[in-house]
């Protein structure tokens, strides 16, 4: 069965600093990868996804993630964070484009001024 590991439960950073949120998944023949974000008192929102093609995927708010098959990783990065990026970030994997998602435990990103 698939599993997802988010190595950091909490990541505190200062505003405008770079950040990397780590995600590793158990290997599979084919896999679809996702990052979801949950802002305080809001529901889960899809941030970005990898289905196929280019291994580097980007979101509209400056985040990017790179699919690394050999390391079974899908780390999320942003070169310069804002206070408004404070949220909990969940990495998820699926065996099919419409299959159920397997989530990691989440990483709480806290951006300080």
């Amino acid at each position, binding site marked *: 069965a698939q599993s997802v590991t988010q190595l950091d439960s909490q990541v505190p950073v200062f505003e405008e600093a770079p950040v990397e949120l780590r995600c590793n998944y158990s290997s599979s023949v084919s896999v679809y990868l996702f990052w979801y974000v949950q802002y305080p008192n809001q529901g889960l929102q899809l941030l970005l996804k990898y289905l196929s093609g280019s291994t580097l995927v980007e979101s509209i708010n400056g985040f990017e993630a790179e699919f690394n098959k050999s390391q079974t990783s899908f780390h999320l990065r942003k070169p310069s964070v804002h206070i408004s990026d404070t949220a909990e970030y969940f990495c998820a994997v699926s065996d099919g484009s419409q299959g159920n998602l397997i989530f990691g*435990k989440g990483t709480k990103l806290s951006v300080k001024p």
Partner: protein
Amino acid sequence: GAGVSQTPSNKVTEKGKYVELRCDPISGHTALYWYRQSLGQGPEFLIYFQGTGAADDSGLPNDRFFAVRPEGSVSTLKIQRTERGDSAVYLCASSSIDGKQFFGPGTRLTVL
């Protein structure tokens, strides 16, 4: 509607009672998912519908949990003989053929 809606937003019940949680998916979405999120954990898959039928119910923890989607739109998650360990946020998501899942705000269930 514009997004996935779930009712009620909060439900407090007593141990042993029966509860129903409702999910209204985005119009036209054929796939509907139920997840459960306990404190400090990521969402945990429960069941997935494709149309009216349950395509995968492997995540339901035991036979006290049941879900239906009789007309291929609204879904109801039913929990019998609730236990304190059932306390969690129950999330619903729907998706179209591209597989992008849109989540509702969740129902926070508290079993006293």
